């Protein structure tokens, strides 16, 4: 009797195991053989969303599967990140998000996930922060702003799109570096800050490039300093813009938009996904999309992308 029980147990375990191996094997061999889903944690029509849609078109060509962009919004990006954390780790659900949109909430807010819940597939777009002032302010570079701030302590205003964002970090690093007393004003997103800058209502503002590139081209606004290199921006005169490094701050503040998957996704699936996303990111038509977007795309595959995320996390903790 006892033997029989053991036998059934062993048998059922074997069957379950076989099924598991069978399905896993199938998944590996055929991945992707079903519709892929890219979760974008922001509303349609925004920057991350437009990158996602351009990327999805190319991924469809490479994978031969339909690629859906799904905007799971709410909780300032939390809902979308959770949607992938709670999804099956089969590689069919991935999330496209900005690096700082993931690390900043982990550092500054109480979010129910950490970087350990995800695996990096790769970064496709790197856009640094930049500090912009209305041309009427008359600043030539950030040094002028520092001088003006020292001449009138507590008077100058520096807008940021929101608290705990890459642009807030950029402002904080520079203010600490020069020991200046300026008022940091949080706006509710990029559009109202853009309006305040064009209307010359704040002395300067920090945004993520290429927001306001058109105003810079038209001479209405001026870039004072960038959070990282502007080499790949589609506007010659800005490509050699001074960065934080030129101001003696050894940190790059960029928003790298990239793709992540569930932490339990099998390595073989991740490798295949890196192939698909990487191929899409390096394709000609994705480069053409870059012309519209104002920046050349990049391709930072899995491991190195995750390393960047770690350094960013460290930078944010240093100012917490």
């Amino acid at each position, binding site marked *: 009797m006892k033997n029989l029980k053991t036998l059934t147990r062993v048998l059922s375990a074997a069957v379950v195991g076989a099924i598991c191996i069978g399905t896993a094997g199938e998944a590996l061999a055929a991945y992707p053989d079903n519709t892929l889903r890219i979760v974008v944690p922001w*509303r*349609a*029509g*925004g920057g991350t*969303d*437009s990158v996602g*849609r351009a990327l999805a078109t190319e991924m469809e060509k490479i994978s031969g599967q339909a690629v859906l962009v*799904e*905007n*799971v*919004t*709410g*909780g*300032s990006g*939390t*809902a979308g990140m*959770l*949607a992938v954390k709670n999804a099956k780790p089969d590689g069919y659900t991935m999330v496209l998000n900005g690096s700082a949109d993931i690390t900043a909430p982990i550092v*500054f*807010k*109480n*979010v*129910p996930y950490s970087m350990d819940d995800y695996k990096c597939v790769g970064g496709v777009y790197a856009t640094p922060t930049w500090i912009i002032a209305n041309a009427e302010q008359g600043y030539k570079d950030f040094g002028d702003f520092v001088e003006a701030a020292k001449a009138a302590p*507590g*008077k100058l*205003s520096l807008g940021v799109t*929101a*608290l*705990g964002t890459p642009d807030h970090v950029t402002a904080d690093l520079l203010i600490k570096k020069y020991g200046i007393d300026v*008022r940091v*004003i*949080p*706006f*509710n997103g990029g*559009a*109202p800050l*853009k*309006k305040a800058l*064009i*209307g010359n*209502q*704040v002395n300067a503002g920090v945004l993520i490039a290429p927001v*306001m*590139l*058109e*105003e810079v*081209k*038209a001479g*209405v606004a001026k870039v004072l300093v960038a959070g990282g290199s502007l080499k790949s921006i589609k506007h010659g005169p800005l490509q050699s813009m001074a960065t934080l490094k030129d101001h003696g701050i050894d940190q790059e503040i960029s928003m790298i938009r990239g793709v992540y998957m569930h932490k339990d996704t099998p390595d073989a699936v991740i490798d295949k996904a890196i192939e698909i996303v990487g191929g899409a990111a390096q394709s000609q038509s994705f480069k053409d999309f870059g*012309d*519209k*977007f*104002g920046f050349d795309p990049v391709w930072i595959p899995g491991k190195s992308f995750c390393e960047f995320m770690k350094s960013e996390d460290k930078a944010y903790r240093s100012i917490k």
Partner: protein
Amino acid sequence: MIEGLLDAFVTVSAPSHLGLILIGTVLGLLVGALPGLSSPMAIIVLLPITYTMSPLSAFEIIMGIYVSTKLGGSFASILLRTPGTPAAACTSLDGFPMAQQGKASLALGYSAMGSFAGGMISWIVAVSFVPLISAVALHSEPADIALLAIAGLTMVASFTRASMIRGMMGVLIGLMIASVGYDVQDGIERYSFGHPILASGVSFSAVLVGFFGIAVVLTDIDMVGRGSNLVSEKVGMALPRLGDMLRRWKAWAIGTFYGVVVGAIPGVGSDGSVWMAYATVRSQSKNPENFGKGEPDGILAPESSNNGTTGGTMIPMLTLGIPGDGSTAVMLGAMILHGLQPGVTLMTSSADFVYGILASLFYANIFMLVVALISIRFFIAILKRDRSSIFPFILVFTVIGAFAEDNHIFPVYIALACGIVGYLFEARKFPVVTIVLGAILGPIIEYNLRLGLAYSAGDWTTFVTTWPRAIMFGGISILVVREFYLGFRRMRSTSKLKLKQGEES
């Protein structure tokens, strides 16, 4: 400028272009009429289909949708008391009573005419005064916007049905709902109970479909089993006459004025402007007691104001790349996807496109009126149907609406909760509309008030230092004092009445 616009009219007048505008208009009317579906949502869904089109063709459809969703929203307000869009909530105040009196088609007709008047006048104003409007958009500061929204809230508090106390309570509940989540200035979590989804606030569209969609279905549940027998064939198809429209010029003129001004100021939107228009027209009226009982002016004012924002929002969007409301924010994204660079250079780099949009907006207004007047017959047919075949659809669409905003299930629970609370309040004759109003204007006031103070480094005098602000501040003060005065007088007369009754008994 005129030359460019005329060229654009020649281009857009081709049948293929007009066809696209017409498609957009028909779609917009339907999307607007369905509670829970909104104009930004419709534009987003259509975007992938427009990828292969030229940017102008894509925007011809988008303009059609943008203009006629505004009108479509009022159709559901009038027929079912369930506004299809947030701004249409105001139209139900007089639209639904009018429909109950058997004059549904007349109400729909007034709504269509009001929308058309608002849309057309605002188009003319927008095109004639481009530099002026973009200057208003650019130089309006947070302090101005805060005062404008406070003025709106004060004006509305004066016409809430039942008592002012209930109205104020409703507004406060709305403000409480709106204050859930991270506060922008200090980054402090409010009323989120540690729940990460609540940290970014309560989804506004969920609150709206809850209070207006689900609560209305629950309240009107006794109508199941019968259609509206109030619509008789005879009065069924009466449309407003032009003479009536002209006689009521004040209502739509005031409505349009608010629409254009509020539309030009980014960050307020038509959800707020309709209420200000309604309150002003009501206080200007010779018989304010008719409002809320089916007064056509009460339909004309909000509808003209709602569509009056379309011209106002276009100018900052096209000349500065600044969105005035949710729809224009999505449109700016659509421009980028179509390879255009919205911003101060758009007018010079893609002048044909800019003028094409303005020409499409003009046609969209005309098509909206024509399509609406033709389709009133079909909408009336819906009203005649048994409610048991309408209510399930409303519930389905409210749930879809709550879900689709974020593609997330949590807002659906919020909508259900708001629906039940709304039903309980409604059953006790509590003006639910004031809750929604607090939720609409609350965040606008808080954000801009605090931003205004951040601009001035905490100096409160910033709210009276310019002439427009001083005037608005004075206006608000007069409104509040007058309200208190009237309140005290009413209290005294009722207490006298009670005394008298006491003596008699």
